[in-house]
């Protein structure tokens, strides 16, 4: 799982500029150059190159060979090979993606599941974060640790735990039948409902933590002022608390929405055959159908879907920072 606490963008203030030492010898200068150079080279090799290969692969033709694709670019021919390749790029994979409803449907379904889950996470996470921010100072470290603890336990185990609860002969149905709410066991496992439960459960810490971070710094006197001026509590909540908590809401929503869109483990374990998610489609294309080029094309589409919300969030952040200046 790739999740992170909210981060700041790198600062560019002039005060952080490196102070060149007049005494710096050639050795020092080399070390100084290596600091950015080493991670830069690493990222070029292990991030950018694989990324370019996926892009290239998405334009290749599938083949029944090992590896199962026909490379589009013949690297041994150098520049000629590259030019040759550019003239015969194959957009078939992408036309296939638009022709077959399965891919469009799985992309849309992922977006829908991610959007609904994010709203559910807000509904569950906000009251928790709000209560935590209001709790007495001495209880806060404990409450915080209780939210963080599940984050450190295995993601897979947390998803697995729900299989036993949601199964037709599982704990939930046993309890519900026991108290006489239902006669027949409910089919929850292998449906979208199970995916929602699993997603909300797994991502709850990522929603609560950024919300808590913002709410904890909330100026409560503003709420008092609103109340003193005769504002009813629910209106004060909407007009004071929510706008002030907006950065936390945006951070939490983004932190959850993006990984949920590409989620693979949860739909595979809790979802059913009808639950479409693009991350699962990509894996199926790759592992079951062994169509590497098509899987790459799905990967490119998934990336485009994910980049959208990130750009919107960055735009909002810049605007907010400009306003506060």
């Amino acid at each position, binding site marked *: *799982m*790739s999740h992170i606490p909210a981060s*700041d963008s*790198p*600062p*560019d203030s002039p005060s*952080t500029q*490196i102070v060149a*030492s007049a005494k*710096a010898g050639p050795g020092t200068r080399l*070390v100084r150059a*290596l*600091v*950015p150079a*080493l*991670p*830069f080279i690493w*990222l070029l090799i*292990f*991030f950018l190159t*694989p*990324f370019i*290969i996926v892009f290239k692969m998405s334009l290749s033709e599938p083949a029944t060979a090992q590896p199962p694709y026909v490379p589009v670019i013949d690297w041994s021919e150098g520049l000629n090979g590259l030019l040759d390749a550019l003239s015969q790029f194959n957009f078939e994979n992408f036309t296939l993606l638009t022709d077959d409803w399965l891919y469009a449907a799985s992309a849309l379904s992922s977006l829908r599941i991610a959007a609904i889950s994010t709203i559910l996470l807000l509904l569950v996470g906000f*009251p*928790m974060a*709000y209560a935590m921010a209001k709790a007495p100072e001495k209880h806060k470290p404990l*409450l915080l640790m*209780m*939210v963080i*603890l*599940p984050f*450190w*336990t*295995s993601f*897979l*185990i947390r*998803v*697995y735990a729900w*299989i*036993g*609860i949601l*199964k037709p*002969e*599982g*704990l939930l149905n046993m309890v519900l039948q026991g108290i006489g709410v239902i006669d027949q066991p409910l089919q929850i496992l292998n449906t979208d409902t199970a995916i929602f439960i699993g997603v909300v*459960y797994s991502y709850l810490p990522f929603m*609560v933590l950024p919300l808590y971070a913002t709410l904890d710094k909330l100026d*409560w006197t503003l709420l008092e002022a609103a109340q003193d001026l005769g504002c009813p509590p629910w209106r*004060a909540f909407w007009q004071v608390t929510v706008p002030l908590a907006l950065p936390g809401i945006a951070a939490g929503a983004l932190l959850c929405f*993006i990984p949920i869109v*590409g989620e693979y483990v949860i739909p*595979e374990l809790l979802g059913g055959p009808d639950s479409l998610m693009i*991350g699962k489609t990509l*894996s199926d294309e*790759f592992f079951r159908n062994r169509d590497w080029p098509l899987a*790459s094309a799905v*990967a490119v589409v998934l*990336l485009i879907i994910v*980049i959208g919300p*990130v750009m919107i969030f960055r735009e909002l952040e810049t605007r907010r920072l400009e306003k506060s200046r």
Partner: protein
Amino acid sequence: MTRRWTLFDTTALTFGFAFLYLPLLVLVVYSFNDSRLLNVWGGFSTRWYVELWNDKVLLTALRNSLGIALFSAAIATFFGTLAALALVRYTRFWGRPLFTGMVYAPMVMPEVVTGLSLLLFFVSINAERGFWTVTLAHTSFTMCYVAVVVQSRLVAFDRTLEEAAQDLGCPPLRTFFTITLPLIAPSVLAGFLLAFTLSLDDVVIASFVTGPGTSTLPIEIFNKARRGLSPEINALSSLILLVVTVAVVTSSLLSKRALIPAR
């Protein structure tokens, strides 16, 4: 006045924490169930723990996972710390926007895409897939998390100490090892632990880039979970939960104790 604790707050926290912890509790309770069936309580038993101990496949997978996590977290901490230094201390160098983008991008990259792209990369350079390809793949995504954690510490760093050392004639490299590194050490350690945990937890990227013969613990758990419930996995999960809980509680107690003399 407005900070008054209400019944709503109590309810929110009670339900929230019950939601977070009940499933884990159920998991642990059923690891002691003698029956293989979930709806039958066959009595208290530790047989699944014994079976776990004799499962050679899972034990090998565990050893692989720990090895991969250790190596990848170590390499990730090295490159991640350098990346954080580059981001904070080097305001101008060739390709800085590209560099910044590449540091942050892996964190928003869907795992399936990272896994696929790294696999295609390893295939294209004819690397033999197994332990080391998983280690390298994990390093490439965890180093970004290390960079972010260390960077947040470097931003809040008091640079006058470094300047003082340099004014007193301390060479830059020695200044780094005697002043800078000890001061950012807690965040470097935190980055290492985060990288270690993320590597230990990853199933998607590992299943793409691993080769025949090398399996990790999450891959084994995932494959068993796909086929439904297995009390053995419950036992394994309970042990992992125990280790994690002890580690997190101890570290938070230690850090609290470390705070007291500072006050």
